[in-house]
């Protein structure tokens, strides 16, 4: 295979070597963490060590961490906990918040979806209005997975708490990329996922502040103090712990390392390709996510053409998923569906090099030019 340039780190990250080694070790030293014998205690020690490591990454206490099968389960667990109460969430949440909220609120009847401005920042006045309805929980993602925009959770929590609402944030994309501390954010619940920080897929956690309500989603076992039944995925949890340790070490330097490359990519695109729109508030953005619409060229086609030359990215185009609607996030920030269909998300990683960016900047303009030449929309967006 030709050399690959992987710019889809928001989808998943390559597993760190230390994570892999930790997992292999645990697979060799097996055991059920709920058993009282030697093998069980050995596994339990691994789980508890990982719990402390994950807690440390977000400034929490170990007992406030519930291991789950990933960010999706953590989000479902959170939403299920507030079943029967009103929800406040944003218009740009990940489907693993959006869909459960729809399901739990009578197709949205008992939910408020806070609009965002053209940069993707949540409308705080709308939050004030929604709080009048006494919601049980306000769930707003810390950083968005498509456009990388970062919300002011602190301000949201300060408004929600006096109204007796609990505050959750889906920090799946933010953790490891920007400092995340549950006390600084003022949140009661927080979702994170291992595979976005160099850990394994299929494991994540919900942070639940001491004494906060939690209704289990999975019943039938005493694991996680009866809050999440099921034999521990011990190897994955161990890997999650190792990834958390690594992330804690690298998080402060991540922006300095990656932002220059993201800026280089952005500048290069804007300079070399006409009729592009950079999506999302660039002042409040994760350092590694760049979302661009290339008017007149459809996203899935761009993505597959880039893939062919060795570059992995993702798109907000409906065509990539089979939905007839383009990205809900891009629709929320930008009324023009054509631009949503034409969007590409580049998400850089700790291993991305200037050379990688140069390669993208050589290939991308040719691909866009060719797709535009064969596009029916050329007349409107001729370069």
């Amino acid at each position, binding site marked *: *295979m030709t050399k690959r340039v992987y710019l889809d780190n928001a989808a998943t990250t390559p597993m760190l070597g230390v994570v892999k080694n930790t997992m292999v070790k645990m697979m060799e030293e097996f055991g059920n963490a709920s058993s009282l014998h030697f093998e069980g205690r050995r596994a339990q020690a691994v789980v508890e060590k990982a719990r402390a490591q994950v807690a440390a990454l977000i400034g929490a206490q170990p007992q406030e961490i519930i291991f789950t099968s990933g960010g999706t389960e953590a989000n479902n667990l959170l939403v299920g906990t507030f079943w029967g109460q009103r929800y406040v969430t944003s*218009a740009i949440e990940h489907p693993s918040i*959006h869909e459960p909220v729809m399901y739990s609120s009578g197709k*949205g009847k008992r*939910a*408020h*979806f806070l*609009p965002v401005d053209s940069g993707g920042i949540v409308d705080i006045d709308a939050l004030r209005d929604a709080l009048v309805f006494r919601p049980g929980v306000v769930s707003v993602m810390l950083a968005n997975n498509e456009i990388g925009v970062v919300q002011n959770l602190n301000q949201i929590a300060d408004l929600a708490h006096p109204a007796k609402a609990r505050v959750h944030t889906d920090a799946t994309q933010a953790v490891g990329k920007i400092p995340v501390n549950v006390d600084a954010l003022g949140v009661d619940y927080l979702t994170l996922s291992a595979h976005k920080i160099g850990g394994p897929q299929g494991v994540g956690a919900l942070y639940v502040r001491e004494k906060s309500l939690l209704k289990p989603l999975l019943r039938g076992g005493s694991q996680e103090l009866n809050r999440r039944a099921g034999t521990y995925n011990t190897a994955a949890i161990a890997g999650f712990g190792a990834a958390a340790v690594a992330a804690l070490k690298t998080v402060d330097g991540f922006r300095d390392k990656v932002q220059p490359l993201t800026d280089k990519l952005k500048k290069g695109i804007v300079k070399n390709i006409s009729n592009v729109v950079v999506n999302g508030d660039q002042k409040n953005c994760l350092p590694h996510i760049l979302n661009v619409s290339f008017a*007149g*060229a*459809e*996203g*899935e*086609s761009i993505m*597959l*053409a880039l893939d*062919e030359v060795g570059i992995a990215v993702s798109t907000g*185009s*409906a*065509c*990539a998923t*089979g939905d*007839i*609607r*383009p990205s*809900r996030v891009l*629709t*929320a920030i930008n*009324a023009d*569906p*054509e631009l*949503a*269909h034409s969007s590409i998300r580049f998400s850089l990683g700790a291993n991305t090099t200037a050379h990688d960016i140069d390669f993208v900047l050589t290939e991308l303009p040719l691909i866009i030019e*060719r797709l535009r*030449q*064969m*596009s*029916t*929309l*050329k007349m409107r967006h001729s370069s």
Partner: protein
Amino acid sequence: MKWAYSDEVAEHFFRPKNVLFEDESLFPHNARGMSGNVICGDQMLMLLHIADDIIEDIRWKTYGCASAIASTSVLSEMVKGMDIFAAAKITPAQIAARLGGLPAHKKHCSVMGDEALLDAINNYLAAAGRELLKKVKKSTPGSCAERSTVVTHGVKPGVAKGKNGSKTGR
């Protein structure tokens, strides 16, 4: 490693046949048709040069995903040299079959070249004052094709049919 679609889709996506890269004025044609709309993410333009009811030459443009591009491309190969009445009978299923099959969700939205073709043929017939061919109903309930104006005659398809987007607003 296996590609996202069939080899035939790959072939027509990466090496599209009869595609028009230039402005449409550079291809002499006497029939023009369009289908799809950009809200759904797919739009096709078909230009035909018809003589004695035979499609002598064809060019197309597509804004759309890989299977939209591939399906228009393969259709253009199928109909070249055909008489217009036979060409108008080609179904999306036949196009998909020539592409070695398409994922189910792709059939609704991306195989619309036949509608652009029919639109072009009807425009040609209309210009000659002849009877128009009927569109065989084929759009799937809930598909983009069903929800929007697809086949239009001579004019660009209606784009703005209300906002098709967010179901999150409240």
